[in-house]
């Protein structure tokens, strides 16, 4: 039982469906919260752990696809499984393009749903882990001075100290000092480690032709 560390939300306007799904998910070992409408879910306080939403497409008020859009705009990490009584191809396409984990037609096989929930939680955990790594990597990189950051980007391009010095119109010795400080601040000992860290943080190598001013690419 991993209660409280993860959230399974069932959003459906039909009470029977909500009760049935909660019982099913509970029997599969998931603590489940139910919501009668999309608005009810949005009103809940933000949950920090992995979230899987089992979402009805057709609902009064904000419908399933609308909620999906809303959540993306909010930047949450909810993974969505759509369920519908009357699925058509355009709706399914929009749902999947919007990043849904699965699109199930009612009545569906219970194992299918449980598998989808499992998959969704894994996705969500993975995403949360990645987000954490990136956050950590960026917090490290944020400690660098602008000059050190510039040097860093030339280093991960694979340039030699001499080349970097000529690019930045300074002495090779100066570059060497900057580089040492970068490695020290980030707690790294090799260039491959440095490259991996910058990748996690989402920093691209400098392009000499376009300058080295930007911090993170879009």
């Amino acid at each position: 039982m991993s209660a409280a560390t993860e959230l399974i939300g069932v959003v459906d306007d039909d009470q029977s469906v909500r009760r049935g799904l909660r019982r099913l998910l509970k029997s599969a070992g998931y603590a489940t919260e139910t919501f009668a409408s999309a608005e009810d879910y949005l009103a809940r306080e933000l949950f920090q752990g992995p979230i899987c939403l089992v979402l009805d497409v057709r609902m009064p008020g904000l419908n399933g696809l609308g909620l999906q859009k809303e959540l993306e705009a909010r930047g949450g990490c909810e993974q969505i499984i759509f369920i519908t009584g009357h699925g058509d191809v355009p709706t399914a396409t929009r749902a999947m393009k919007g990043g849904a984990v699965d699109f199930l037609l009612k009545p569906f096989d219970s194992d299918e749903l449980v598998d989808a929930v499992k998959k969704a939680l894994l996705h969500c955990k993975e995403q949360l882990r990645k987000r954490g790594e990136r956050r950590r990597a960026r917090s490290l990189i944020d400690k660098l001075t602008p000059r050190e950051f510039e040097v860093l980007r030339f280093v991960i391009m694979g340039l030699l100290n001499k080349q970097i010095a000529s690019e930045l119109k300074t002495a090779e010795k100066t570059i060497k000092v900057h580089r040492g400080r970068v490695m020290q601040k980030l707690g790294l000992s090799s260039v491959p480690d440095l490259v991996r860290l910058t990748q996690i943080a989402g920093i691209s190598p400098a392009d000499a032709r376009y300058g080295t001013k930007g911090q993170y690419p879009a």
Partner: protein
Amino acid sequence: MKTAATPIGLAGLESNSTAELKRAQTFEWRIGGIALVVALAYYLGAKIGFALTLQPHPISVLWPPNSILLAALLLTPVRFWWLILLAAFPAHLAAQVQSNVPPAMILCWFISNSCEALIGAGCVWYLVDHPVRFDRLRNVGVFLVFAALLGPFLSCFLDAGFVALNRWGQDSYWQVWRVRFSSNVLASITLVPFIVTWSGDGLAWLKRIRRARFLEGTFLVLGLVSVQTFAFYGSGPSPDSALLYLPLPFLIWAAVRFGSRGVSAAICVVTFLAIWSAGHGYGPFTARSAEEDALSIQMFLIVMSVPLLLLAGVIEERRRDATMLRERDARINLASESAELAFWSINFETKKTWMSEKGRAIFNIPPDEPLSRELFLSRVHPEDRSAVDEAIDRARDSSKTFEIEYRLLRPDGETRWVIARGRYGHNEQGGMRDLIGVAIDVTAQARANLELRLQREEMARLSRVSAMGELTASLAHELNQPLTAIASNAAAGRRMLMQGPPNSAEFEELLADVSTDAHRAGEIIHGIHRFVRKSEGTRRVVNLNEIVREVLRLLHSDFLGRETAVETDLLAGLPSIHADPVHLQQVLMNLLINSMEAMQATPPQKRRIVICTRMEAESLVLISVRDHGGGLPKENLEKIFDGFYSTKPNGMGMGLTIVRSIVEAHGGTLGAENSEGGARFSIRLPVSRPPESREVA
């Protein structure tokens, strides 16, 4: 030519009579004028009559006053006749007093003269259209028989009677009668046509004619006068009687070229010259006694004038008919061009055919090609040909007008819609004389209508199909909710059991939920019945055959698209039923769509649906839909009507459930069986009361 004064005067008279119709202010003046002119003419006529006597015979060869009176009556509306007679009386008195006739005789003669004019004018007015003209064979005939012969014939009895009564002269009754008769007939024939034709619009006509015609007329008059002068004066006292016919060519010339006006004037000229010359001892009519000579002249002139007047009438009539025909042709051509009309006629007797220019353009027939039924039919669209052929045959047999709308397929490949009407004409023996017809090109309207109809049908079809789709979609959504809950609960129960002995309270709650949801699903199914019954208010008397036709129209494009042939075997006179037509359409549509889908694996040439309506027992109508799609699975024959059972991979299994619900709501039954390599669905519905409402076959 003293009488030249009369036509001018009477011309004024006639224009007076029309002016009277306009209720002019100067009415009394005109009446006075008419009276004066008639009086003057009558008096002059009497003087001329006295002058035209063959001495020593005292009776005039030509007695104009009676004819002047007759002509005046012919030119005047009946209600003014009293005035004409009143005006003539003093003139009569003045003329007769001079010749020492006793007063009683004068009065008697006036009475008999008036009788003659009244008889003649009355008959002509009664039998001939007004104003009186001599330009028709019938008019001339009526005039000759009634005014020129009957009038004098009857009035001369009176005349001779008066003479005998007054013991005037020495002649016997019959002698007086004969002399008067021939004199009056001659005067009527020669003078009346002249006065009547020239007084109307004679002078206006003279002014209107072209110079060449004027010259021709002048030559004619000169020729006539000189030939006449030669015939009567140039040769000795007893010349060859053949000379009498010398003027004839000129008279015919006048009749042919100048009509009744010309011939009446020429006859006057000949008459006066003949009598004048005889009166002065010249020409052929001087050989015997004055009495005999007078009779000869009269006979000669009468016999010559009658055919000439008739000839002129015939010629004018034909000329006018030809003009009218030309004008009508021009009108028809104008109408046919402006209305896209094709006029045509085929005359079976003369083998002549005609078609308006526009018609040839519409039917794409070259201008010189003679028409025939075969040629005409060859232009008709092959699909419509037999219908058109039959319509023409029917028209011939029933001798009624036929009207038919059909398509033309022209050699250039274009299809045109036309509406045609035609009629057979019969000759006097009752045989076929001709076939005339008119066709109108309605392609533009027909295309617009067709498009509109197709659009409407497509819309109707979509709305029917979507109504059905909407129903099943909302049903599916409704039903899926409890089913999802049931499935989820069941799965949860299984998992609980697998994880060891479950909490009994929890498990009981689960089972209660399953039960509730199952009942809810059942309720929804019943809801279909309610949905169907909701429409009971919209039921009316309908005929199943009509519904079949309607649905076939709605699904027409589906049949084409799926290459499926549909045969109908509809019982004529099928009794009506009481039902909601839209629901029955849905039932039939559903069955037909099922059939089409069942035949997807059937080769296209064998895809055939047979729809059949029948009477069963006294009070049941049966409609069956049979396909050739391999039939229903034998073991599941009963299951097919259950909800959610489907033999189709994508089927929801609701179609037949709904069909059965609708049929049962109408008090009917739905059955299914396999038949000749396909499935057959049969619906039996009760006949509506009262049973009199039957379809007119």
